[in-house]
């Protein structure tokens, strides 16, 4: 059984007891993503807190909340995401996203940086299963969209 390499205990824990699940107010951006092959969905909200006067990459991710339906991998990944990103700056968060995306495309060969990815290193085994990569990335793609939206809204508001 290679199952354990994919379904690490950390993943199963997050799956059974997801963190920050349930949509919260207030929020700046919201994104709804669907995995077209299996129909899994997530709605994810982001609230940012400006560092200086305006919302930009230096803003802090003040809150991430979500509602979702899906497999253990997609559910656990959303939960881990909130733990990792809440409290970081947007720029930092984007770096974590890049690192996580790279890990997911590493075909099981990645050497994840535990300092950056923390619990998310548990997903290394998922990268060996191409059909599941989308599951692991679903929440992250939604976070990227919702964050971009938050920054956009601010810009529009400002102009």
């Amino acid at each position: 059984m290679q199952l354990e390499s994919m379904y690490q205990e950390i993943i199963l824990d997050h799956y059974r007891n997801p963190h920050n699940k349930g949509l919260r107010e207030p929020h700046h951006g919201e994104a709804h993503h669907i995995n077209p092959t299996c129909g899994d969905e997530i709605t994810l909200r982001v609230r940012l807190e400006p560092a200086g006067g305006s919302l930009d990459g230096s803003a802090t991710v003040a809150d991430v909340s979500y509602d979702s339906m899906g497999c253990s991998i997609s559910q656990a990944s959303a939960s881990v995401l909130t733990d990792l990103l809440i409290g970081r700056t947007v720029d930092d968060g984007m770096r974590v996203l890049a690192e996580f995306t790279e890990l997911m495309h590493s075909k099981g060969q990645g050497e994840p940086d535990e300092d950056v990815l923390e619990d998310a290193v548990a997903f290394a085994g998922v990268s060996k299963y191409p059909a599941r990569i989308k599951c692991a990335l679903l929440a992250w793609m939604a976070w990227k969209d919702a964050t971009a939206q938050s920054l956009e809204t601010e810009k529009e508001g400002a102009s």
Partner: protein
Amino acid sequence: MTTSEPGRLDVEAVRADFPILARTVRDGRPLVYLDSGATSQKPRQVLDAERAFYEHHNAAVHRGAHQLAEEATDAYERARATIAAFIGAGSDEVVFTKNATEAINLVAYAMSNAATSGDEYHRFRVGPGDEVVVTEMEHHANLVPWQQLCQRTGATLRWFAVTPDGRLDLSDIDSLINERTKVVALAHQSNVLGTVNPVTAIAERAHAHGALVVADAAQSVPHMPVDVAALGVDFLAFSGHKMLGPNGIGVLWGRRELLAGMPPFITGGSMIGTVHIDHSTWADPPQRFEAGVPMAPQAVGLAAACDYLSALGMDNVLAHEQAVTAYALKQVGSLPGVRIIGPTDTADRGSAVAFTVEGIHPHDVGQVLDDLGVEVRVGHHCAWPLHRCYETVATTRASFYVYTTFAEIDALAEGIQAAQRFFGTAAAR
């Protein structure tokens, strides 16, 4: 584990013809391929026939006067005759497409093209006020093309609902099929539920109102004897790759007089009558619908698949699948926490067995099965609206064919229990 095989096929002899079934997956586990509903495996006989074409007779069909072109054309047209005979049709009623999807799109596009073609094609015109009827259990291939036809023409899409036990809800057939109905498109056999629909009765109703009937036979022609004359529809679509044949070839069967009166879809070489720089006329069917150099090697491969199935006997194929399905419905359906989506007995039911496992997402069920070498499909199986009817986003589907054994069903049932143990959702039996 069951060792006797009550079906009328010598399954071990059949399996020996399929090279891929000898391989292992994951950590050296024997391959248990239960995804034939997505695509079937191919016997050596089919691969040999296709290769022999390439190595001995390859040339552009219907385009040359030299010996190779003659041989290629002859092989292609003999393949058409074999495939036509397989469904009880005339050769000139069989149009080759790349798959069932293209075959259905062909009819849907011909209908919108009729609006801007000559009056001789008025039979196929649809527009505002006209209605197109589908069902909630359609594969996207027999749903989206009709949505798009309505979008192009202003016609209205209507649909049959499905009942909780996986049948078409025919209670409102009188209002659904009426004088405004131009076309009724429905699956002969559902790729998720396994349900075999009462196509003939529905076609009668449709014909009484002058509507055309398109049957999506992608899941029926591979698995049961199908005779187009008896079925009573106007068009029938299926794919080669689901019936032991090569990829890249599908069939649209249409009634002779309808094909003759239908404008073309894809245009280009070999489908023309005459071509002037600013206008063209069309060849007779089936050539009218086969633009470009055709997939002759694949047609030859598909004919070899028909020969293979005919040698087994489609009655025997059906009997074998019925036996395997009955066994699967029993072994899988009786597991605690497992819910079959679709009819739970084999009356008017083919061999797709879709199910949910309480507390475990289909992706996770599929992952555990895959780890054990059991290859099933998870997701909405290109039937998203159907899954909404059952208030689930996804299911796990096992589907069977001529090479499926009872032992493989046992492996499936054991795998589901392994998933339940792994995710801690059920006490081991």
